[in-house]
């Protein structure tokens, strides 16, 4: 659906987005990750045609963005605001009309969206009379009106209470089921793990991680298993060390040992196994590790991945683990 190829953008001779290439397939929720100043916002602005790349191409369904994007892409920026004086329903209807809906259809859609986010009683109130949380929901609705096919959301959960976060997650799921594609930029890694299929991480404008969330987590996991048991663990063949914590133990394996052989050994010793799983690092830890250690940065010599789905996450530049 969205195809970004070799996109480069420089300011004052410094590349803020450096030959980034990725694809977002229809119906997926795709995470765009990176530390502050990595170039995410610039990349999003180029996808939304607010900025033009110095080189490279961005295509939506195989066509250049300006020809298609306006009515099909919606963008909720991180720094966002609303007109203060108009009524909530008028604000949404305005965005709807800009997306090509008729005045009547735009107003109907605005009413329906406000009802969906439980703000129908506030539809005729000026935006400035709404609470910050309510305004946040109206802002989310400005992105949803007109049923865009590609939703680009930059930190959409900021300022929402847990109930509204849940409501918004449901909305995203609904949109996805209806065929929409979501590009989600967030620092909330638990949300990425929970919602996203694939992720791209950029740092200093370079691609440093790209692949499915599961593969990224697996690749960055240590060679270890986690075990929940009430039994006392002695020495286990093929296990280098055991770290026990609150009824759960992490077993670091020797290089030639497989998790299956360890499980067999535990059962042979009549250990009461309540749960047994491959250990994997939380995405947040991977994020910190990659950024802190500068993994994947190759100072412009990188070869960006060309396959949009990779069995293993691409770590550009051979930074390794």
């Amino acid at each position, binding site marked *: 659906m969205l195809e970004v190829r070799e996109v480069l953008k420089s300011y004052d001779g410094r590349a803020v987005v450096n030959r980034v290439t990725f694809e977002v397939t229809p119906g997926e929720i795709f995470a765009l990750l990176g530390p502050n100043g990595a170039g995410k916002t610039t990349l999003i602005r180029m996808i939304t045609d607010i900025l033009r790349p110095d080189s490279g191409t961005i295509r939506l369904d195989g066509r250049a963005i300006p020809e298609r994007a306006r009515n099909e892409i919606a963008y909720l920026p991180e720094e966002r605001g609303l*007109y203060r004086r108009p009524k909530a329903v008028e604000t949404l209807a305005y965005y709807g009309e800009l997306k090509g809906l008729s005045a009547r259809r735009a107003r109907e859609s605005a009413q329906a969206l406000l009802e969906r986010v439980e703000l129908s009683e506030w539809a005729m109130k000026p935006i400035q009379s709404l609470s910050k949380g309510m305004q946040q929901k109206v802002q989310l609705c400005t992105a949803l009106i007109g049923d865009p096919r590609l939703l680009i959301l930059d930190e959409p959960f900021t300022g929402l209470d847990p109930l509204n976060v849940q409501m918004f997650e449901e909305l995203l799921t609904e949109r996805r089921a209806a065929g929409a594609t979501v590009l989600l930029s967030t620092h909330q890694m638990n949300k990425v793990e929970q919602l996203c299929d694939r992720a791209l991480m950029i740092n200093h404008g370079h691609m440093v991680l790209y692949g499915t969330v599961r593969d990224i987590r697996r690749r960055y996991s240590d060679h270890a298993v986690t075990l929940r048991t009430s039994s006392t663990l002695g020495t286990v063949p093929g296990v280098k060390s055991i770290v026990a914590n609150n009824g759960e133990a992490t077993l670091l394996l020797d290089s030639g040992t497989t998790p299956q052989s360890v499980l067999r050994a535990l059962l042979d010793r009549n250990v009461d196994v309540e749960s047994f799983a491959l250990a994997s690092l939380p995405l947040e830890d991977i994020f910190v590790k990659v950024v802190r250690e500068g993994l994947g940065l190759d100072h412009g010599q990188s070869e960006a991945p060309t396959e949009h789905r990779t069995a293993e996450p691409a770590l550009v530049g051979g930074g390794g683990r």
Partner: protein
Amino acid sequence: MRISWPRIATVARREFLTTVRRKAFVFTVIGTPAYFAFVMWISSAGELKERSEVLRELSTVGVVDSSGLFRDAPMEFRTEVSAESNNMFAKRAPEGLVPATLFQTKIRPFDDFASGETALRAREISQLVVIPANYLESGRVRRYARTSSLFSSADKRAVASWLANGLVRGRVDSLLAARVSRPAELEQLFTLGKDGSFELKDNRREMLDFMVPFMFAMLLGVSIVLGGQYLLQGVAEEKESRILESLLCTVSPEELMAGKLFGLGAAGLLVVAIWAGVGATVVGPILLLAGVKLPAGLLLIALGYFLLGYLFYGSIMTGIGAVTGNMREAQQFSVWFTFLNFAPFIMITFLLGRPNAPLAVALSMFPPTAPGAMMLRLTAPSSAVPPWQIAASLALLAAAAWAALMASARIFRIGLLLYGKTPNLPEIIRWARQG
């Protein structure tokens, strides 16, 4: 670059409706002409009142005549003040409709200065006139008063008229004496007209002929600035409140800018239309009675200057709104361009007095001052602006407006997303060139 006209129309409609529904808009529509009318009334009525006050206070004038020339001078004189001279419409009013006020002044002779001074200090007389023995040779007269008006010399003219009358009274007949005191009471001045023949100069009629187009030109100047200010305010507010980024995904910067220009230009035109409509209803019948015509050609030229002037200033204001961080900063920059627009009105006496002088021609060719300067030149009583100058001025303004629009669109695209830092002039120029 593909432009979507429906999106432009949506932006324009929203900008127009949002602006005209604001209380500030209603206040501008009603308040601005009310303010100007009040200022004009205050200055006109104040001048008349001041003159009347001066003459009312001149009830008795003491005279110390050492020359002996005024022994037979009248012991009182009357001064007539008519509101007509202050009211441009009064000339056309039926006779007697505007009543005149008569002020009577008595003459009280004194033998010496000391006794006259004592009477003046004791408020027995209003002023003291001392005529020295060598008055005939020197022409010197000393006048003593407790106070002096800054804004009226009606007392000086009244005393001078009495002196003239007194000099010849008894020596010539009374009719001649009266004429000497007011020698050019009903002077008619004939000037060379635009068709080559001499025409009777009618100051009040000329004032009317000038005032109507002048006010019209002033309205256009105000509406150009108004539209520009709405643009400046709108862009600066949207930038400050971070609305633009989500909006720019849906509508291109060029479409957004065009929509704003159309919508807010229409709001500016609406203000002019309301003022012109109300003005025509209120003073239209009087103007018809006075035979004042507003040539259709002039109206067309004015419309051309409004459209191009608005496009020129509106583009600049949009660019300023886009590069500055907040409303206060935006207004600091915009004030210089507003000043340029009104600069010709500051030089009004020069432009009306010498409409064909090289500086006047240059000002009407220079795009920032062209709308005001050319309209003033066209309305000047002795104006004869060649058509080629109007065409050249409009062409130059159109070229400048186009250049401003293109540069502003490029600056707008980059500047809208720049927060926290106002770019310097070289950066702005680079944006305008590169986009």
